[in-house]
């Protein structure tokens, strides 16, 4: 079970959280002007990363905060935790 550091509450067990999948997913600014393929890409298509994955998590049974995590999907190591509107951190090869 992962131990996830909520930026607000500190380290808590994975069972308190919900994973919201890849992050960020940018909602097209003008949906009406977005063609079907681009809209489907926004709705459905996600990277299925083996290795470094950027995803958003929700402290559902805690403070309710959404935040971002950089996680290695192989080792489950959490390499960075950052705010929901922060840019993806640049992680060096040693990370």
């Amino acid at each position: 079970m992962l131990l996830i550091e909520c930026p607000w509450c500190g380290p808590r067990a994975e069972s308190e959280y919900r994973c919201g999948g890849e992050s960020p997913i940018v909602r097209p600014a003008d949906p009406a002007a977005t063609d079907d393929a681009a809209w489907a890409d926004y709705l459905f298509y996600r990277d299925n990363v083996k290795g470094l994955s950027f995803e958003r998590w929700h402290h559902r049974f805690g403070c309710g905060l959404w935040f971002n995590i950089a996680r290695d999907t192989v080792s489950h190591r959490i390499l960075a935790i950052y705010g929901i509107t922060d840019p993806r951190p640049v992680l060096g090869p040693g990370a």
Partner: protein
Amino acid sequence: MSGYRLERSGDIDRSRPINFRWEGRSYTGFAGDTLASALLASGVRMIGRSFKYHRPRGLIAAGLDEPNFIVQLERGAGTTPNLKAPYVELYDGLDAAPVNAWPSLRFDLLAANSIFKRFIPAAFYYKTFMWPTWRLFEPLIRKAAGLGASPKLPDPDCYEQTSAHIDVLIVGGGIAGLAAAQHAAMSGKSVMLVTGGRHWGGRLAGTSDSVEGKPAAVWIKDMLRTFTAMPNVTLMTRTLATGHFDHGMVSLCERLTDHMPIHERSGPRQRFWRVRADALILATGAIERPLVFRGNDRPGIMLAGAARAYLHRHAVVAGREIVVATTNDSAWYAAFDLAEAGATIVAIIDTRPSPSPALVERAEALGIMVHASMAPTEAIGRQTVRAVRIGCVSSAGRIHGATQTLPCDLLLMSGGWNPAVHLHSQGAGRLKFDPGLSSFIPEAESSGHRIIGGAAGDFARYSTLAAAPEQAVTRRPGPPQAALWSISESDVPDAEAWVDFQNDVTAGDIALAARENFRSVEHLKRYTTLGMASDQGKTSNVNGIGILSTLLAKSIEAIGTTKFRPPYDPIPFGLLAGHRIGDGLRPRRQLALHDWHVGRNASFEEYGGWMRPAAYLRPGESEADAVRREVLAVRTEVGIFEASPLGKIEVKGPDAAAFLDLMYVNRISTLKPGRCRYAIMLSENGTVFDDGVVTRLTDDHFLVGTTSGHAAIITEAFREWLQCEWTTMRVLVEDVTTCWAVANVVGPQTRSVLDTLASDIDFSADAFAHMTAQRGYIGGIPARVARVSFTGELSYEIAVPWRCAGALWETLIAAGSSHGIVPFGVEALMTLRIEKGFLHIGADTDGTTLPQDIGLGAIMAKKTQDFVGRRSAHRPDGLRGDRRSFVGLEATDGNAAPLAIGAHILPAGTTQPQPGEGWVTSSTWSPTLGAPLALAMIERGEKRIGENVRVWDLGAWREARITRACRYDPQGTRLDV
């Protein structure tokens, strides 16, 4: 009968005899015994039948690696299957039976399988029972091959769950674990040391081996005494580490009462621990490998280390005439100890050409014959071993030359030791094959934990003790262990030499699998079931991989191991469930006035997690009668309904209106304060997600109504949008559903009831229009009142603080009594809304319903801004002309029974079932119209009003006509009062 008890020694209390039953017969052991040690001391040899061939089997191990002695403990609801007898502590009245013998151990009918063994090799069942279907044979085969019976009744025991956060967790109570704990504790850190069994000291418990210059028993006792003075050390026996999970979490199973007589037990049976430690040290020891030779599964053949453990822990000598066969030094010490305890050691057979001279010298001093370069090639005997045939063996396990036979009643074997790397491996630690030890050992760098002692492949006492305080994983080279994966008199592995005792897999089965090209170890495992039994191959995996490696002429390193998975040993489901059973799994919520409803003989049903009255039954009434009466009362007089579960979310802030415009199909920002609007919400995928009434309380403050049981989900969705997408909007969202209890007063007489209340609210038509809301006081209680209707009748929803619900309700019932006010339940409400054709999200809609399917196309077209789901509703599939739409359905066949919900709708004239055009979504008998009514989703339904269709359900046809959804008061005149 050959095992016996010594007069002295052992960690047992001879003054406390314990009576127990095995296979229906009475036996006596002592306090400190396990079921295995007590039966061994009683001379019982055959303790089970094998899984597949029902061969007689005996005890081979002294721990959880035991593959044969698997028992069903106790009977009835508290029965537990598949316990390993060496781990079952004896208690007075214990009642155990073998799991795989029918009708009895001695006379097992299915032992006939054994005679036909050569016809039922690996995968035989899958290959043979293919026609007409495997399922036909499966139940019979499962009965024949069963391991234990699961209880048929609810578990009478309770289980506890808890967590611990500590500095250092040490798993394993052998000398490595004790020494590591001592070192960690001296630094002042909090230390938890757990061991699965009852005793400390692991394999050295009870021995006279020297540890740091003291006899082991004294060293262990001294160590434990040191810990009692250290409050930072927690010692836990009977606590098995069952799993090692991501980010270092370790699960423990603490057995609290399993060792007590049943009538003395109280409280939880077991406790499940989730432990997170800054440092994890694994000192889980090692597991001895059996030797693989013909007939090696006969009762009376044991692991040498196990015989030594039974001797020292329980003062049991497992046999009288003993032959010891080994590939390494460890079994020699078992022979010496047993000889010193008075047993006759017939011979020590060592496969190595030149065992250490010191060992040979000591053997000779004890009068033990030594045969080097030799191995057992066949165990002779049937229900117990009578003799062993031995011969000269090559390093590859091939017997050559003449053989000789040695009589014996106990054959001890040791094929070397495998580090118990299970927890290391579960925790994503990698393994490497060590050619010196011929075992898989942990790779130090690959994990975040330390692993010491036998678990690290470090079998030397002095180096284990030295390793305990060190920071990194260490391993000192001990004496090498030669690999001898299987012994055979021919070039191929012996088909009667057992590798996996519990799953009945032989060396011949592995050869068969290799011949059939199952070369990956994962395929081999599944094809032969090697290592798939409840012991997960503790004694068999490495031998199996070794044999495969020889057959394929491929290195063991290249073959690798199968994956280790938790739990290390099976644990009860109840332990994992803990308190989350029955109502503890998913608490059922009660209404504010639950007791009142109970007093009115309500029949309760669960709706969206709430226990709500379906109907209030009067004496002699069926539920259908009650629903009919309640519906008519609402249509003609006045009814009252508790609507407290109705979702209520407050949305507040300068951007609240703009935010709700994004959330709803309907325009919310144009709503004036004090007014209500029915609105529909979509998911971003475009499908209908929720509906409810939105009330604008003030300019920047809204009360959002959701369907019952959906409020938490909608609140969460709102917050996700606000936190992740529209992050600059200034809006606060709070679910207040259970802050407000709601009484809904409905029916033409409603106003006459409300007018009699002591209230500052004017309920008249002029002062309180339909779809408006007001705040005020009713009988001194603060109330939020909305005039909204889900029934088509005059209706006021009165929300008051939850704690005031009783007072309000009594006031309303008193005020309504002269008008014959009738409480009504959810079923009546559903009938009323079906009569009106009001949509019920989740009943009439599903995960494919788009807003245009339920008549919202025009509203969408009119709204100029974007909202969640809008774009998705206009994908090509949403624009199809033949989409289903929401309509009504009336039966035209004169049959008064309502149409079946879910029934298929087909064109008129259809006589054969064919792809349908839609289905019935809601259906009821309408007391108001005196006819069955239904709602349905039908292809182009909107354009087919008046058309006849056929309705098919489970082979029966009905005739019906498509109508508008609303069948009662379509003009809404009843609201216009």
